[in-house]
């Protein structure tokens, strides 16, 4: 059985055409059967999913909840009480959190069933889901290729139609880029839109929970549930939550779509360039106005991002010391040895970022790196503010390439960072962005990105849904 959309499942549950337990059983059966093929899951939450399904079965009043009976997958850097949460790290290999992330609480309160925890890059550090202590995630369109990252497992869970919705996390493109490489929809909300309580911290000035869906409507339905102020999370903003579900009806007529031609002109794979150009033609044909915009500092986004990320990661990951929770190296006679040997369990990419972060925050280097990067970041943000005076959304390819081969960039960290070339600037600017499928190049999916001003998720949903209806690319799924 191919899982239908969240909107359809919820409708069937509300009308009594199916039961949450039936949906749950079918999903878990497929999950167990498929488990090893794409390595998309680290932990399957059989008991938790079944318990939620039984609760929904028993109480007919719950059938009206917005995600009643919808199976969802959660990236494994988001805490689930009683269900192992590893961040794909040996340091947290056996860690079972004592509390749920706010997003998990809200999904379950809306009637969703959490079926498992998805594989990703360790502590969300990477763009290929290869930096995982549990092995790489494989792309369902070509298992010799990466699913993208860091939230690759969640992208695959949705691409294979195992679940209609999955949560990921975004720091530099970790939802949009794997969404593009796997052919699904991926959203990074405005910084502060969604609570991060229970999201394992990586880059606190940037991190945000994101949403994968097979359709734009499903992503809107999920954001509707998880968005909003959380008293437990100081950076979650007290900004009203719009009606995202209504926003998808808008259509492309009269939309002002900015295209940063100077920025996206270079370095595109020919197939990606063709799909992007075709997408712009589709929007123009539907009545959108295409406007050339300039984002002169975005070409520095990846380098700026690298500095901010290494600095904040080195600080955030200092908490993993083998004392209060997580792994502890055996036979350490001194506290220093305990720390150093426990932290030796981190993978290569995590070690690189911790060391470079330590370097750029050192006395004498802070101004030259972290402070300088923050100044460039302010310019990137100013570019967006100026551009959004003239346009409603800005369109770019999501990724300069389609899915690359497993192992291809592992030895060259800088090449790996360049996978985020078009995504990281939205993170630095704190603005929302969405990736929608926009075709194929040599059999591999290509993603189209729209960015909007802060808190303007409704116009993103309007634009993405209009494009989706015009092209039907979101109806394509890999044969599995």
């Amino acid at each position, binding site marked *: 059985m191919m899982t239908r959309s969240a909107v359809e499942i919820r409708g069937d549950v509300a009308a009594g055409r199916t039961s949450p337990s039936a949906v749950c059983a079918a999903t878990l059966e497929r999950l167990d059967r498929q488990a090893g093929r794409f390595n998309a899951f680290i932990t399957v939450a059989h008991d938790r999913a079944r318990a939620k399904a039984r609760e929904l079965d028993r109480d007919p009043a719950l059938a009206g909840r917005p995600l009643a009976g919808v199976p969802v997958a959660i990236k494994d850097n988001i805490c689930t009480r009683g269900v192992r949460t590893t961040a794909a790290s040996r340091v947290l290999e056996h860690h*079972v959190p*004592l*509390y749920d992330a706010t997003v998990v609480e809200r999904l379950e309160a809306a009637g969703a069933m959490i079926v498992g925890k998805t594989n990703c890059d360790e502590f969300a550090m990477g763009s290929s889901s290869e930096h995982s202590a549990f092995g790489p995630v494989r792309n369902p369109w070509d298992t010799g290729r990466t699913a993208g990252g860091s939230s690759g497992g969640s992208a695959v869970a949705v691409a294979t139609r195992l679940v209609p919705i999955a949560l990921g996390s975004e720091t530099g493109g970790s939802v949009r880029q794997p969404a593009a490489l796997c052919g699904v929809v991926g959203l990074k909300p*405005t*910084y*502060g839109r969604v609570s991060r309580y229970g999201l394992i911290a990586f880059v606190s*000035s940037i991190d945000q929970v994101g949403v994968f869906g097979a359709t734009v409507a499903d992503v809107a339905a999920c954001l509707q549930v998880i968005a909003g*102020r959380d*008293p437990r*999370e*100081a*950076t979650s*903003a*007290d900004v009203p939550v719009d009606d995202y579900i209504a926003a998808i009806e808008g259509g492309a007529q009269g939309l002002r779509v900015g295209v940063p031609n100077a920025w996206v002109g270079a370095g595109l794979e020919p197939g990606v360039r063709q799909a992007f150009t075709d997408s712009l033609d589709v929007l123009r044909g539907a009545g959108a106005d295409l406007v050339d915009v300039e984002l002169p*500092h975005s070409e*520095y986004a990846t*380098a700026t991002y*690298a*500095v901010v990320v*290494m600095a904040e990661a080195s600080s955030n990951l200092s908490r993993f010391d083998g004392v*209060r*929770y*997580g792994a*502890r190296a055996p036979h*350490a*006679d*001194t*506290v220093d*040895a*305990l*720390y*150093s040997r426990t*932290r*030796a369990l981190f993978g*290569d990419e995590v*070690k*690189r970022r*911790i*060391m*470079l972060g330590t*370097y*750029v925050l050192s006395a*004498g*280097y802070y101004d030259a*790196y972290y402070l*300088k*990067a923050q*100044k*460039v970041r*302010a*310019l990137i*943000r*100013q570019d967006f503010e100026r551009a959004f005076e003239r346009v409603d959304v800005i369109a770019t390819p999501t990724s300069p390439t389609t899915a690359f081969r497993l192992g291809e960039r592992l030895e060259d*960290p*800088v090449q790996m*960072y360049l996978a985020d070339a078009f995504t990281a600037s939205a993170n630095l*600017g*704190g*603005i929302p962005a969405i990736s929608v499928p926009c075709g194929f190049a040599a059999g591999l999916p290509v993603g189209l990105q729209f960015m909007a001003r*802060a808190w303007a998720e409704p116009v993103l949903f309007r634009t993405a849904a209009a494009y989706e209806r015009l092209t039907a690319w979101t109806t394509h799924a890999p044969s599995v």
Partner: protein
Amino acid sequence: MPSVAAFTTDEVRRLAHLARLELSSAELELFTRQLQDILAFAQQINAVDTSSGPAIPFIAGEARPGSLREDTVHPCLDRAEVLALAPEADRAAGLFKVPRVLNE
């Protein structure tokens, strides 16, 4: 801007110590090359003139930080549950255990 050319295995060894990361000799060699590459890449930001740029925003984007909450007592994690997660703890005393730190 400090010179990236100065990045040596000694520098990496010093950083690993500061960050409390035990590295193998193979890692030391690999990371010396890779950290240098990454730092050279990061130095692209020097090409940007930031002398008359806007003020650095608080945190990011348009995010409005929540107003400060009242400083009132709320239930928190249960001590016994927290200690049960620890690699080593003295549950009766309610404490985490670490190797001896005094008179090392």
